[in-house]
């Protein structure tokens, strides 16, 4: 299945540099639709989880102040080529999306 999450991982020794980009509107709930004047309801990612071989390496808790199409980067140690990094987000409406990438 096509995913809207893009993940790139660069291995430097046993440190994995993770760069990730999600497609999401990240509506604050304060913006008004320019055509109708109606308030656009809040719609934003709340939690983003990265698991390497099933072990959590990062959890990001987001507010509406995270920009549209969020970008996050971080690094973790103890990584090896062949490890499987799973990325998953959930948003405030209960939608979710996930993907996996093999390191190396």
């Amino acid at each position, binding site marked *: 299945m096509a995913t809207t999450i893009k993940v790139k991982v660069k291995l430097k020794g046993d440190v994995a540099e993770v760069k990730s980009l999600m497609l999401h509107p990240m509506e604050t709930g304060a913006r008004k639709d320019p055509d109708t004047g109606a308030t656009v309801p809040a719609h934003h990612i709340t939690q983003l989880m990265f698991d390497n071989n099933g072990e*959590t390496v990062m959890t*990001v808790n987001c507010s509406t102040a995270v920009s549209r199409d969020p970008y996050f980067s971080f690094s973790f140690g103890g990584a090896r080529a062949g490890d499987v990094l799973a990325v998953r987000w959930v948003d405030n409406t209960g939608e979710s999306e996930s993907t996996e990438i093999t390191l190396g």
Partner: protein
Amino acid sequence: MQIGRRLFLQGSVAAAALLAIPRALLAAAWPEKAFGAEAAAKAMTELFGTDQAAPSTAISLTAPEIAENGAVVPISVETTLENVRSVSIVVEKNPRPLAVTFDIPPGTLPDVACRIKMGQTSPVTAVVQTDSGVYSASKEVKVTIGGCGG
């Protein structure tokens, strides 16, 4: 000890129900109160139990001096502090100051980056929670065009 068939079945059902709980619920819950707080101090208290953070030169906060577009302000935080548990970004003058919190398990480096929205010119504070306390570093970011919609 002999386990009755009925008891065994009940146990199996309970175990199956536990397995069916989505992973998201098992992870630490999204800190709704901290994100809903309309003052930076309240958000800090919700997250850390205190609104006091010791300024630290061991935290390096990278943010633009002037953000032309408040909708996309790149922020990165790195620290040499040890045993870091979380890194949070607080924008004092946003309607809800707490922008994002990174939970950092052992093994993950305290070096994170993301892009946030800023409604207006404001101090941006990186708050780092370690096993020994709460530390911070701040920088003023000037915003030319606000990015909170409206």
